[in-house]
């Protein structure tokens, strides 16, 4: 049944790319430039403030994949590294943002075929009745193939208090795919550090299949200020000269208060300052110029209840 001969075999398709001789020298810098990985890494550096350990780890991974590619050209067989990861850190420390960048980076390096990110939570994976979980989890996994599956607050998948919880089933399917289809999908689990630890201790199989545990540190006050300025700049706002110290002391005070969510709190503060800024303009100035609509004054922050002691 194979002798139809309707398609002539494409010439050269079968022959593998020529291997380099053992004495050959490869220009790593050129390889690097060709993969255009530096664009992503530079964007990571300039657009994300702080996060030194995270950036270091991402650079290491990029370097490993690049060197692996060179090794493959010498004909050295190496198993594809497992890149499943766990991101731990407080709220608002940039876990999702880094995951998006990571997906793009892995795509550029040829590790992922598509490089898209599918962000899910327990709701998307776990079903509501018997037999509902497996198809649901598989559907999400299929959607994520060729890219990164980002599971936010992964510890909710496992509920220790209810042994009949369907979350266990979702975890088993995840583990299976993480092991068997490592080439197709990278799974990133994210969550708060302490809860992730207890999640891993009750799911040792999950822990051992994750090669990279990356911890996202909380931001310092100076980093938060830098983040705030970046956010303002992106939205076309600026601080008046005398607003700078007020903004700084706002961050100091807000950091000490409960439910502080790092960059997310800063974003919310800026949103509220924008509201006050607009209301102030409406109330006081009948005519405005560009400077007036783009500059936040101290009172836009000072009227916050953070300054009133919570």
């Amino acid at each position, binding site marked *: *049944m*194979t002798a*139809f001969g*309707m*398609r002539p075999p494409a010439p050269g398709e079968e022959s593998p790319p020529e291997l380099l001789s053992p004495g050959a020298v490869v220009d790593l810098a050129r390889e690097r430039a060709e993969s255009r990985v530096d664009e992503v890494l530079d964007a990571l550096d300039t657009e994300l403030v702080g996060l030194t350990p995270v950036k270091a780890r991402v650079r290491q991974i990029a370097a490993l994949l690049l060197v692996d590619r060179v090794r493959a050209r010498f004909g050295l067989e190496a198993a594809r590294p497992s890149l499943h990861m766990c991101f731990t850190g407080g709220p608002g420390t940039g876990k999702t943002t880094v995951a998006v960048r990571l997906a793009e980076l892995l795509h550029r390096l040829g590790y992922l*075929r*598509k490089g*898209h990110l599918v962000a899910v939570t327990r709701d998307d994976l776990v079903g509501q009745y018997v037999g509902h979980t497996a*198809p649901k989890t598989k*559907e999400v*996994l*299929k*959607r994520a*193939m*060729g*890219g990164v599956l980002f599971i936010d607050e992964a510890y909710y998948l496992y509920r220790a208090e209810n042994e009949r919880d369907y979350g266990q089933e979702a975890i088993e399917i995840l583990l299976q795919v993480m092991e068997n*289809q490592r*080439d*197709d*999908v990278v799974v990133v689990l994210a969550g708060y550090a302490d809860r992730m630890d207890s999640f891993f201790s009750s799911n040792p199989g999950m822990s051992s299949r994750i090669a990279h545990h990356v911890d996202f540190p909380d931001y310092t006050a100076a980093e938060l200020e830098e983040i705030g300025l970046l956010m303002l700049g992106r939205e076309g706002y600026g601080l008046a000269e005398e607003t700078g110290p007020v903004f700084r002391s706002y961050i100091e005070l807000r950091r000490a208060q409960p439910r502080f969510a790092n960059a997310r709190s800063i974003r919310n503060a800026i949103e509220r300052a924008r509201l006050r800024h607009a209301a102030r303009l409406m109330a006081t100035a009948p005519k405005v110029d560009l400077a007036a609509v783009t500059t936040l004054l101290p009172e836009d922050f000072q009227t916050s209840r953070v300054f009133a002691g919570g």
Partner: protein
Amino acid sequence: MRITQGTFSYLPDLTDEEITHQIAYALDNGWPCSVEYTDDPHPRNSYWEMWGLPMFDLKDPAGVLMELNECRRTFPNHYVRLNAYDARYGRQTTALQFIVQRPANEPGFRLTREEAADRQVRYTMHAYATDRPEGERY
């Protein structure tokens, strides 16, 4: 007798790699894929059993291939085919459909003649495989 229906049916069976390329083509066109199986090879049997639901929002062929292989593993001696559906308004039809697995031994069809009124003869086809009950055919 080798069943020929759907695209590529006069070609040698596609390898997994070739199937992957075809799936990628379908996905690039925005056609969701689905997997179907049957053990009734009659050409007029258009409604094959669905293997799960159609797969929407997929970006990469690996997901479709995973379901395909699972279906093949569960029904190693059935016909399995892959559908790609074009949902665009104005088309809304199957855009690509091909068989990805067939039983090792396909017994083929018998021609049945039926004597009707006025010495008319009606012809019909009967698949030898369907002499046995469903699930025991191949």
